[in-house]
């Protein structure tokens, strides 16, 4: 299967949906991919179930501040160089690349790398959504070493990082990102085909494209995109999607602390009755309450959508007065194991809520 020019906008919309409010706006990555496709390059998408057991897959991605990315667009060489550093360390060429994170801009970086290098992109990722840190990966939970990790900037500066601890990989790489000027491009978690099959969240790129298509089409023909999203997601490994609240944003408290955007958004009900909804976020939305009652909690996806069009609104573009629908989405089984919940469940974010998977 190939990704064509007409697929890119849908994929970006779907990636923003799966980004759970974070992940960075995919628009810039989408333009990079379109530019490659217009130049005649092609992007082949591989089903993870069809990977050769011994093939080498090196995921690629961007990390840092979305606001810096908005101004300092990459040269395009950075993720290529990062991947080369990993290839050098392993003494072997990558047979394919893939996303570490399907939510937000990182759905598009591997597509760009695949187009540039003429290697296929695996239809899977390590988060099934967006998370803020490098150790929050199903790859890590399933025992895949994070390094060697290549990290590069637009100046040709690069580093190859080796550590046996996923948290220290995040810590050191974050420091390098700041010295690089707030954004960096990386390749990590090199895997065999067998490891990808075991450790990834599967078919998430095509899922993002399908979600984007539903939102665009429903808008075009006056359908109800929310109902269509719920019906569609019920047929996927995510199992369930449900509108948990609708109303108007009445308060927005956003701060930068410890290198993250932390905050709470408060939504008053459309009906005029009942308690307001509060959603707490650390880049991504973590938990939604109605009054004191939790409606959904991480790792389930909490997406804030435009009330008319169902277009996802990323947290940096939330504003006072927007009319929104909050939709919660379950996550695939691989993201709900005890080990997975230790890595990116409520406790990993310092929340006291118990994780109760979203019900239909």
């Amino acid at each position, binding site marked *: 299967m190939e990704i064509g020019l007409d697929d890119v906008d849908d994929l970006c919309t779907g990636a923003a949906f799966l980004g759970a409010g974070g992940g960075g706006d995919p628009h*810039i990555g989408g*333009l*990079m991919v*379109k*530019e490659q496709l217009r130049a005649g390059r092609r992007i082949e998408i591989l089903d993870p179930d069809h990977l050769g057991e011994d093939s080498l897959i090196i995921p690629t991605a961007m*990390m*840092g*501040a*979305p*606001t*810096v990315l*908005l*101004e*300092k*667009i*990459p*040269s*395009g*060489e950075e993720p290529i160089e990062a991947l080369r550093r990993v290839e050098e360390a392993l003494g072997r060429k990558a047979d394919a690349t893939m996303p570490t994170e399907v939510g937000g801009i990182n759905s598009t970086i591997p597509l*760009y790398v695949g187009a540039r290098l003429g290697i296929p992109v695996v239809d899977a990722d390590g988060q099934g959504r967006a998370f*803020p840190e490098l150790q929050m990966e199903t790859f890590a939970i399933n025992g895949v070493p994070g390094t060697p990790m290549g990290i590069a900037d*637009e*100046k*040709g500066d690069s580093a190859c990082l080796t550590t046996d601890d996923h948290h220290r990989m995040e810590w050191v790489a*974050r420091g390098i*990102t*700041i010295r690089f*000027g*707030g954004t960096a491009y990386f390749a990590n978690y090199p895997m065999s085909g067998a490891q990808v099959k075991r450790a990834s969240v599967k078919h998430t790129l095509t899922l993002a494209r399908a979600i984007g298509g539903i939102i665009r089409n429903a808008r075009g023909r006056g359908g109800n995109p929310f109902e269509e999203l719920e019906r569609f997601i019920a047929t996927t490994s995510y199992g369930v999607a449900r509108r948990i609240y609708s109303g*108007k944003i*009445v308060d927005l408290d*956003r*701060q*930068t*602390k*410890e*290198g*993250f*955007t932390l905050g709470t958004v408060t939504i*008053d009900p459309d009906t005029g009755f009942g308690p307001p909804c509060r959603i707490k976020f650390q*880049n991504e939305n973590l938990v939604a309450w109605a009054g004191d009652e939790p409606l959904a909690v991480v790792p389930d996806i909490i997406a804030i959508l435009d*009330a*008319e069009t169902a277009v996802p609104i990323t947290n*940096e*573009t939330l*504003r*006072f*007065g927007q*009319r929104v629908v909050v939709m919660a989405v379950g996550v695939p089984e691989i993201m709900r194991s005890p080990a997975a919940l230790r890595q990116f469940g409520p406790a990993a974010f310092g929340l006291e809520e118990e994780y109760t998977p979203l019900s239909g």
Partner: protein
Amino acid sequence: MKIGVDVGGTNTDAVVMGAEGVIGWHKTPTTRDVTSGIVAAISSAIADGGLDRRRIDCVMIGTTQFTNAVIERRSLLQVGVVRLCLPAASAIPPLTDWPADLAAAVGPNVSLVGGGHEFDGRKIAPLDEAAVARAAREMRAKGLRTAAVTSVFSPMDGSMERRAAEIIREEVPDIAISLSSELGQFGLLPRENSTIINASLSDLAMHVVAAFRRALHELGLDVPVFISQNDGTLMRAKDVERYPVLTFASGPTNSMRGAVHLAGITDAMVVDIGGTTSDIGMLRRGFPRQSTHFVDVGGVKTNFRMPDVLAVGLGGGSIVRDGGRRVGPDSVGYELTQRGLCFGGDTLTATDIAVAGGWAEMGDSALVSGVPRATIDQARETMRALIDKNLERMKTEARDLPLLIVGGGSVLVDWSVKSASEVLRPAYSFVANAVGAAIAQVSGEIERVVAIDEQNRERVIGAAKEEARSNAVRAGATKASVEIIEVEQVPISYLPGNPSRLRVKAVGDLPI
């Protein structure tokens, strides 16, 4: 006394405004040369007010000439596009994702050169002066007359753009140069797009401003001319020659501000009902609420400051179907006076419903006597629901605000509106746009990335406010009238040191 003029695609309106309000007004068709329409409108408005033209202090003009030029792809120049960014930012070259016809109009003259800044003020690379000079010589060889220069993080540090402009001017002395840092706001691609569009309008800007000046000269008015920009504040005519792009969307802004002024309030919802659409906007402290999203102009994502206006497909010419269950979004438009039933035509329009229902007087009411009562009631319900629903969408406060109804189609609405505390139809609302131009203020704005913590917060924001105030005074405001209307602090994710994007805006009145 001030004169406000609105040069629209169809009509040129003029009003004479004194301390007591509108003194005289006139509406006349816009002319091809622009000048004679303005002369006709102003001289008739002055005559209407029975005034001595020596009492006129200044003229404020709002115009859609530049927006229309981009939408219609006419009068655009080829642009020498220079981006100061290497080794960064080459993955998405300038003009990526532009509509092909607009990209062709500005031409394929693009150079990426070394330069640009990091978010913290360090340089990505020193400015590659030789490469800028090479690009300039190419512009000269191609006979280009305008250039657009954009540097990474230039809203924070515009020095490289200014140096590049010097170098280009040494090579091509007469070239017009647009700098992105003077068009403000973060976001390299939309800011660059705005800068390129601005550059492509530089010839038209000279012509239009010259036409304005000629009109004043013909009228014997030796007074300053200001032109309204999209946020409801004014620019000097000489600034419009350099930054025509800043006039985009001044039309809805002026009609909204004119409406609140005529009604004597500062916080309201406004519905401007035209022939085909209604523009719904919100006014806070006398200014339209601004859109936070990228605004698409002629198919290009830009970073213009634009009022957050919702266009709804309901106007005086909207076609009524299904026994009134459907009204619009298609419209007979400017053909209303030929095709509308009450004008002897064959199409049932929203205006015909208002006339048949007896709450508007237009055309010949006998011609709509055959419209069934049920259709009238149903269409009225449909229109009411459409307006209610979209007002609700635009509302950002729980409390009900007054609703101002203006524009040629304002006769359609005779009912009380659910989400409004009251419905107001101020006098002279049919020239609200020119009134908005006449009362516009001047502004000063700053936007930059700063490191803010609890200790320095007050000092950093205080310094920014002071700078915005002096920018407003530099733009012509009287010092005593200047006030800060906006302080916005947006944190930047992922980075330590609490960097934030800080935007402060001050506005003030022009001296009378």
